[in-house]
């Protein structure tokens, strides 16, 4: 190519080959207008791993029930403690490292978690291109379609979808502007904003472009649960995004994901709270969006486009980080690993702590009615959720480094208090009260008036 051509290129970003409408799910069609983005999008089949992320391509012999020839590594084999941690729940059966978007539909269909438990159509909300299917099922009403698919048996609902997340799920076909198409997020963010006294929040109307670069990911990379018999997908954000607020929410409605097989406690499982954790981190605070790191702008010829090969930024450090951090790739990688290794250390300590409590409770299964045991169970519920909140989050602490370790520190403390409860020692009835229930609470320093005028003492500076 010559500079001349490059100057041409710069003037017209793409050629409109086909007319895109609001009913075309197939990304291949969209790809005709946007070949560069489409080619990158297809690359999400690649499997490359980093120290804690990416994914490992593990070959397997396809079977009738599971035709996959390659899967991602099993997290259960990597750390058998997880089977004990989730005893009695489908996750103890099969839990793997997540991989690229291209696999989302297959991996959901063929996970053994489908065989050990009856899953609802709700699952598809985050594992397929749902915009068109929802609109169809709802006769043009997205929410109605959502409500129709949720309660369906998974297998039945599965027949209505045909692609993993596709262009139409994040883009308006006419303007190509970003848009949120997921009822779960539309309702979740609205509840969150309401808790911040922002009424009637409509993300597609009120969000800034930079916010949208995060919200489109927040459609799926969040903690969730199925509400009631309608199995309505719900994001527990009514009280805020902090793990403490989310746990308080579950305490208030008494929701449990399952009863722990060994301790008998009514427990919770956190799932991929990337959006929630990211929001506690320095990058969110600095206005950096998911897309800035996971879909960084790349120079293709004269064009700057968003890299649609969504993946670990550690596999693309120069574009993902060096725009803002003028450091060597190696130094940047080391900074991430330093943060992740610290988190990994505390994660391991926290899992041990929870399991110690579980074993203590197991020995007391007989008198599980005893108040002491009941209280200890509540502490397990807290310790377990807090531990899981970091374990299930996929950046191994990077998205909010100090917060991740704060959460794990609290988890260890809940486990400690649970064991104390088992011993019949007095502990706060409410785990969430523990952090504030210190015997000798110091005068909160924060409450001192800020910065009074300077006051010269007698000094000694020159004596």
């Amino acid at each position, binding site marked *: 190519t010559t*500079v001349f051509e490059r100057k041409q290129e710069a003037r017209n970003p793409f050629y409109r080959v086909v007319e895109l409408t609001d009913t075309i799910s197939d990304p291949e069609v969209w790809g005709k207008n946007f070949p560069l983005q489409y080619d990158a999008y297809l690359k999400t089949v690649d499997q490359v791993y980093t120290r804690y992320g990416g994914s490992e391509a593990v070959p397997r012999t396809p079977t009738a029930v599971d035709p996959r020839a390659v899967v991602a590594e099993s997290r259960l084999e990597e750390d058998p403690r997880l089977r004990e941690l989730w005893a009695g729940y489908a996750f103890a059966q099969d839990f793997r490292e997540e991989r690229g978007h291209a696999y989302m539909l297959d991996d959901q269909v063929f996970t053994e978690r489908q065989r050990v438990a009856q899953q609802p159509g709700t699952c598809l909300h985050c594992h397929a291109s749902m915009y068109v299917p929802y609109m169809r099922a709802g006769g043009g009403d997205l929410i109605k379609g959502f409500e129709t698919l949720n309660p369906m048996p998974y297998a039945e609902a599965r027949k209505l979808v045909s692609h993993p997340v596709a262009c139409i799920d994040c883009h308006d076909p006419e303007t190509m502007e970003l848009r949120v198409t997921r009822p779960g997020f539309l309702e979740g963010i609205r509840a969150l904003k309401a808790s911040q006294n922002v009424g009637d929040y409509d993300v597609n109307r009120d969000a800034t472009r930079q916010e949208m670069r995060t919200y489109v990911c927040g459609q799926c990379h969040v903690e969730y649960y199925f509400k009631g018999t309608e199995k309505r997908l719900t994001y527990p954000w009514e009280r805020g995004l902090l793990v403490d607020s989310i746990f308080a929410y579950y305490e208030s409605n008494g929701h449990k994901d399952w009863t722990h097989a060994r301790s008998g406690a009514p427990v919770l499982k956190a799932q991929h709270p990337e959006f929630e954790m990211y929001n506690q981190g320095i990058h969110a605070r600095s206005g950096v969006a998911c897309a800035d790191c996971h879909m960084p702008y790349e120079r293709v010829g004269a064009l700057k486009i968003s890299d649609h090969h969504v993946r670990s930024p550690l596999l693309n450090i120069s574009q993902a980080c060096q725009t803002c951090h003028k450091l060597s790739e190696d130094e940047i990688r080391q900074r991430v690993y330093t943060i992740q290794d610290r988190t990994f250390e505390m994660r391991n300590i926290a899992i041990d702590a929870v399991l110690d409590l579980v074993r203590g409770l197991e020995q007391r299964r007989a008198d599980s009615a005893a108040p002491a045991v009941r209280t200890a169970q509540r502490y397990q519920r807290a310790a377990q959720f807090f531990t899981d909140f970091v374990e299930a989050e996929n950046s191994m602490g990077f998205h909010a480094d100090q917060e991740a370790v704060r959460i794990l520190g609290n988890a260890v403390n809940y486990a400690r208090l649970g064991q104390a409860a088992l011993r019949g020692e007095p502990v706060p009835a409410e785990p969430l009260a523990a952090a504030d229930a210190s015997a000798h609470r110091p005068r909160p320093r924060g409450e001192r008036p800020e910065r009074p005028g300077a006051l010269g003492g007698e000094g000694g500076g020159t004596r």
Partner: protein
Amino acid sequence: MLAAAVIGAALGLGAYTFIYAKGASYLSTDPAVCANCHIMGEHFAAWQRSSHRAVAGCADCHMPHDLIGKYAAKASNGFWHSVAFTTGRFPDPLLIKPHNRAIVERACRDCHEAVTAAIDAGEGPPPRVRAGAGGTPTGNRPQLHDGLGATGEEFSCTFCHTYVGHWVR
């Protein structure tokens, strides 16, 4: 022989671009012409919003302030940037090269020596060689000292004042 051919090609190519793409603009001092290359665009935009827009143009910071050095650097940067630009082979995002950083460091001092006289020795003996590195403070920001050795500056203005020219973050 093969090497020669490559260089020859590079020369031809470079020369072509150098002329066509107003590579000659490197010999001028009008910021707009640096922006001639779209890839310089964001820097140009950032510079227009910077504290120096009214007081220093690209060349004031990126070109040596003495005549010979100035044209040498312009020619070399102009030529190589042209080659790189045409072949499309260059890092994205751009990272300043040690020798060019040294030029910038020098430029700061040319304008601000009076202000910094108390804190900066200006040109002097090369900085102390650091023993060990390891976890030591400056050990992990190599580029902090890159190029400084070249001019003998003891420390880097841009370590703290990275924003002055054009902050593209």
